[in-house]
């Protein structure tokens, strides 16, 4: 279906304007970065406003604006409610953010924690899980950028994806986490106002009652409260969301970057403010059938409904919202993954004596390298955004219990944690292929939980918390 409500020229003009603004902003903020701590962790003193907004903006990804409507379009009410419950990850991470800052005030990454807390085998297994997830998310975001531009303007997928990646890599490279956090704040406001206007116009012009009556007659499964696959998705998505946040360096680096005493408040605030957003974006998708919209690619249902309701100007509006959502997550992920590569792989495995100045320079090169790798992986548009995202659920859900128990339980041992990562991920992938995407995280989390519980019963690690305070180097 050809559906290009804005011209290629308009799309390119918008990209150039946003590109210049964000890159200048990144450069301007980056001038204050003098040390590795400034670049990687924004000086470790971020206040509540920026902290709350960055956590919220990062969690409002293209997936919230594209996949939440897609899942509502495919799974109905439980799709949007299930997606919104991913906010539980942010809310439950709030006390952990406080604990992380207290336990390892000099730490840089979640890899630091796993390495000191559980030892090398668990650390390696964790890094593999974490990179599979990070690359899955990066590729999903890069693809989303190309798909967005292709659908809204007809701009070639590869060109759109390349331009969006280049903009995000540039300002992250210039400004580090400080630029990421400040742009996140502005992007959060743009996204929320945009989502609200689209939701409000949909509510006013189509009407909830007509959406409800149309779906009740033609697509009753979308309103069903007993849609088995959708209910499985709901539980799966809770575990997936929790796993994504608990293990990912995107969230750990923020916990370490926030001013002492801010992490818990910031994550609670962002969780409660994020919770309703997928419901608003999902509701928009419920209106698609009654508007006669049946998109070829279901992840474009949200933008197509919005463009239909708001006309040509509305399409520009949708473009700005989804672009902001994409950029706010892409920059965070680039920065956090670069920290993992620099700190854990280079400094942990290759050059253990590297100075902070050297790591500072290297982290910029890594951001650039990650951008190139993501670009190459995005070139063949291999799958839909939702499918790719849910595939990574098998990996991340295996980390939930090892992370939680590692932070609060001295008994938990590294051997069992390694087994929990490996077997949890394996069972999740089996579930993904044998049953469906909606059980991958569920299977992974349950397997990991059983192994961790056995580990707690049979072995006592007697971990000394002081070892985390000064971030022991790898032997």
């Amino acid at each position, binding site marked *: 279906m050809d559906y290009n409500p804005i011209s290629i020229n308009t799309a390119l003009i918008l990209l150039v304007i946003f590109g210049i603004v964000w890159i200048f902003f990144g450069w301007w903020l980056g001038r204050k970065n003098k040390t590795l701590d400034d670049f990687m962790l924004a000086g470790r003193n*971020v206040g509540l406003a920026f902290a709350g907004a960055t956590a919220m903006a990062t969690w409002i990804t293209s997936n919230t604006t594209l996949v939440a409507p897609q899942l509502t379009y495919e799974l109905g009410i439980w799709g949007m409610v299930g997606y919104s419950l991913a906010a539980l990850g942010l809310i439950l991470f709030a006390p952990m953010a406080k604990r992380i800052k207290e336990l390892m005030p000099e730490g840089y990454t979640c890899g630091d924690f796993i390495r000191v807390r559980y030892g090398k085998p668990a650390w390696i297994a964790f890094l593999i899980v974490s990179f599979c997830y990070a690359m899955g998310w990066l590729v999903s975001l890069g693809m989303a950028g190309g798909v967005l531009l292709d659908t809204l303007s007809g701009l070639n997928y590869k060109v759109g994806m390349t331009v969006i990646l280049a903009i995000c890599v540039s300002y992250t490279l210039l400004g580090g986490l400080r630029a990421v956090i400040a742009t996140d704040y502005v992007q959060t406001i743009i996204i929320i106002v945009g989502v*609200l206007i689209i939701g409000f116009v949909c509510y006013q012009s189509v009407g909830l009652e007509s959406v409800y009556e149309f779906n009740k007659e033609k697509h009753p499964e979308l309103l*069903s409260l007993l849609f088995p696959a959708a209910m499985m998705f709901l539980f799966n998505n809770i575990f997936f969301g929790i796993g994504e946040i608990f293990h990912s360096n995107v969230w750990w680096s923020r916990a370490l970057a926030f001013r002492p005493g801010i992490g818990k408040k910031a994550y609670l605030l962002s969780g409660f*403010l994020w919770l*309703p957003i997928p419901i608003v974006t999902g509701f928009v998708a419920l209106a698609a059938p009654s508007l006669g919209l049946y998109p070829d690619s279901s992840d474009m249902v949200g933008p197509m409904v919005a463009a239909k309701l708001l006309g040509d100007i509305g399409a520009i509006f949708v473009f700005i919202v989804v672009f902001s959502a994409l950029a706010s997550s892409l920059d965070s992920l680039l920065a956090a993954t670069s920290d993992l590569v620099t700190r854990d792989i280079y400094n942990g495995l290759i050059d253990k004596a590297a100075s902070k100045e050297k790591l500072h320079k290297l982290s910029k090169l890594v951001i650039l390298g990650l951008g190139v790798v993501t670009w190459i992986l995005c070139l063949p548009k291999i799958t839909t955004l939702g499918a790719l995202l849910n595939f990574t659920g098998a990996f991340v859900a295996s980390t939930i219990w090892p992370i939680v128990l590692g932070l609060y339980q001295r008994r938990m041992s590294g051997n069992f944690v390694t087994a929990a990562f490996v077997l949890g991920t394996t069972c999740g992938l089996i579930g993904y292929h044998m049953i469906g995407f909606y059980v991958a995280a569920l299977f992974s989390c349950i397997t990991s939980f059983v192994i961790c519980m056995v580990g707690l019963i049979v072995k006592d690690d007697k971990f000394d918390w002081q070892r985390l305070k000064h971030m022991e180097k790898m032997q």
Partner: protein
Amino acid sequence: MIISLEALETLVLVAMGVTCLSPIILIILLIRDWLKEELW
């Protein structure tokens, strides 16, 4: 068994109401942090 119109309307309106509050809260916090020189 399908969701009732009233339940769906409540869900959507509450979600839109809370979403309305978000930018206001974030702007107030930004001004507060800026006045207290606690942005960074």
